[in-house]
């Protein structure tokens, strides 16, 4: 039944799909792992199409690669690659419970699927010709399985709403705007003109280098608190020395 073209395609794409799946497990960078998974999903979609299930294949690529995997990639990029989860178990004994439940589910599935009996298969070519590929799927979804389909959609909508309710935080009052901040500053009488800007030197300027006060000491206020807490600030001395060097050069030049 399998044509030569299909066989060639399978022996090229099949190993690639396995490589992608192995990449998901073994890749060091999270984004590379996600890419391997996306490749495997696309190849699965191509296999579906090759086996005359056009609708299923295209939807596989459209939904899983285009939407679900893209969301994963988004989260990976936003969270950052070097972040790691805490490995301490919060629920004691959950691993054992998971193993038991997974085994039970596998047993149930194997039992019920093993008991199923199939009649004569109509063959995809016949079904694709008469009701058509999309209409055939539509008849099943909106005919025989309409309740299963609707219940699943209700479940999914509930899950999405629940995630929104749990994650969304409503602001109780109005946050202070620029005008209110400036009023507050004047009421308190401190830093009326705003905080000092970070260091600007003759040969360097950056947010991680504090500015110098008139007496030559670095100003803590001119750099971000976060950088100070992480101990990522640079000392301005390097650049003030550079400045002295420039002054010496100028002096030398004028004396020459």
């Amino acid at each position, binding site marked *: 039944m399998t044509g030569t073209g299909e066989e060639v395609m399978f022996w090229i794409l099949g190993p690639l799909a396995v490589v992608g799946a192995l990449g998901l497990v073994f890749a060091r*960078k999270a*984004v*590379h792992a996600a*890419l391997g998974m*996306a490749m495997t999903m*696309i190849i699965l*979609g191509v296999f579906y*199409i090759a086996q005359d299930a*056009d*609708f299923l294949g*295209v*939807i596989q*690529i*459209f939904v899983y*690669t*285009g*939407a679900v995997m*893209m969301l994963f*990639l*988004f989260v990976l*990029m*936003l969270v950052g690659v070097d972040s790691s989860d805490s490995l301490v178990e919060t629920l004691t004994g959950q691993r054992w419970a998971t193993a038991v439940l997974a085994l039970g589910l596998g047993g149930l599935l194997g039992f019920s699927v093993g008991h199923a009996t199939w009649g004569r298969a109509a063959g995809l070519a016949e079904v*694709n*010709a*008469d*009701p*058509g*590929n*999309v*209409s055939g799927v*539509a*008849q*099943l979804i*909106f*005919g*025989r399985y309409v309740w299963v389909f609707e219940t699943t959609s209700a479940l999914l909508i509930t899950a999405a709403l629940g995630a929104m309710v749990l994650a969304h935080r409503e602001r109780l009052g109005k946050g202070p705007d620029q005008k209110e901040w400036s009023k507050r500053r004047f009421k308190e009488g401190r830093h009326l003109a705003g905080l000092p800007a970070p260091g600007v030197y003759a040969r360097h300027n950056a947010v991680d280098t504090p500015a110098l006060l008139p007496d030559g000491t670095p100003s803590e206020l001119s750099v971000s608190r976060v950088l100070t807490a992480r101990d990522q600030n640079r000392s301005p001395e390097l650049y003030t020395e550079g400045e002295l060097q420039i002054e010496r050069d100028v002096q030398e030049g004028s004396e020459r």
Partner: protein
Amino acid sequence: MSGTVTALPDLVALATAGTDNPRADFSDTPVWLSLVKAALVFVYLLVSTLLVIWFERRVIGRMQQRPGPNRNGPFGLLQTLADGMKSMLKEDVRPKAADAFVFTLAPLITATMCFVSFSIMPLAGEVSMFGHTTPFQLTDTPVAVLLVLAVAGVGIYGVVLAGWSSGSTYPLMGGLRSSAQMISYEIAMGLSLVAVFLYAGSMSTSQIVNAQSDLWFVVPAFFSFFVYVITMVGETNRLPFDLAEGEGELTGGFHTEYGSMRFAMFFLGEYINMFTVAALATTMFLGGYQAPPGIAAINGGMFDQGWWGLLWFTAKLWAFMFVFVWLRGSLPRVRYDQFMRFGWKFLIPATLGWVVLVAFFRAGQQGWLGDDVVVAGRSFPVFSLALVGIIAVAALVGGWLWDSRVERKEASLHPRVPEEIDPYAGGHPVPPMPGQRLREPSLAAPALTSASDTKEATRG
């Protein structure tokens, strides 16, 4: 299963209509001819890209009262070729922090995926090619239009990965921004196409074009067309929606770190994506390769068959290209939050409502919701007429309520100003508000008579 299906006669009726599978007949198309057609489509797209970059620069130049490129070749036509050669010969720079593999992979994804969608576009009807009669489209499937959306979904990977692999902040933010934008507008785009599927009864492009032989879908699905045209600009990251490369905020967006041929691939991808969405609009709403109504009637449809289709298709495609350029020449960039709010809070819900409405109209057309009534020589379903009436009344009432609310708000915001003011009332000269008259100071001149007043008015 058969028992359930017979319980739903409408589903069976839909299925027996049999418009699911493609209409295009590929039985007389050997494999080598498919390869020739693939090469033809590829060349068609490349030449179109070379031309459209020149076209864009010339047209925008004309809109801004300057000549545009006019040095290389006649009318500057070879300018794009020269630019392409230049980018090929430039040094290939890769940032130190970049992820080497993905940095090269990203432009490859963009540049290859953009060509795939064109395989299902019907560029012309049945043509004879090397002694074979074959439809001038590479292939067609029952889910052809979904394939375009799926391929666009994979193409977004190029943008996201380019942003991530550059290893710096602005490209990452630009990549996230443009992919968020493309994904959100793809939802509205897919929804707007649903109305066309409902009218055509199929997702195969050849069936959709065939279903438009009486009436182009731009008329019955006018709101879908409106939404589609907006989303196609958003989907291709073009002005006024080119927020991914807002120069003031994000320098070049996801391709900030790219140069030479890698950048040229993104550039190529952007322009071919424009052609893809425009070709889809042509196929879905403007009758595809069919001749425009007046011309189609000449000499028994002489201009509506064979290779003529390519001309009409190209003409419609370039009309959309001109709209793209026109928009770029005349509109400023919108703000990102406004853009996303427009997409999610107006386009998607409005299109959903529209799809439900179209479903009711289609059901009325099929005669599932009651009888027809003859009005002015044509028969309409009673249900559809009633629905149109209800919507019209609701729109009128809604508009009236909205208008009166706006008026009340306006009135509360701007308290009525007296028509005449005394500029010196507060002891300090005050200019009049718009629409106010100045009262002449009484000590300067005697009171004006009504006769001289009118005379003043006629003179002014």
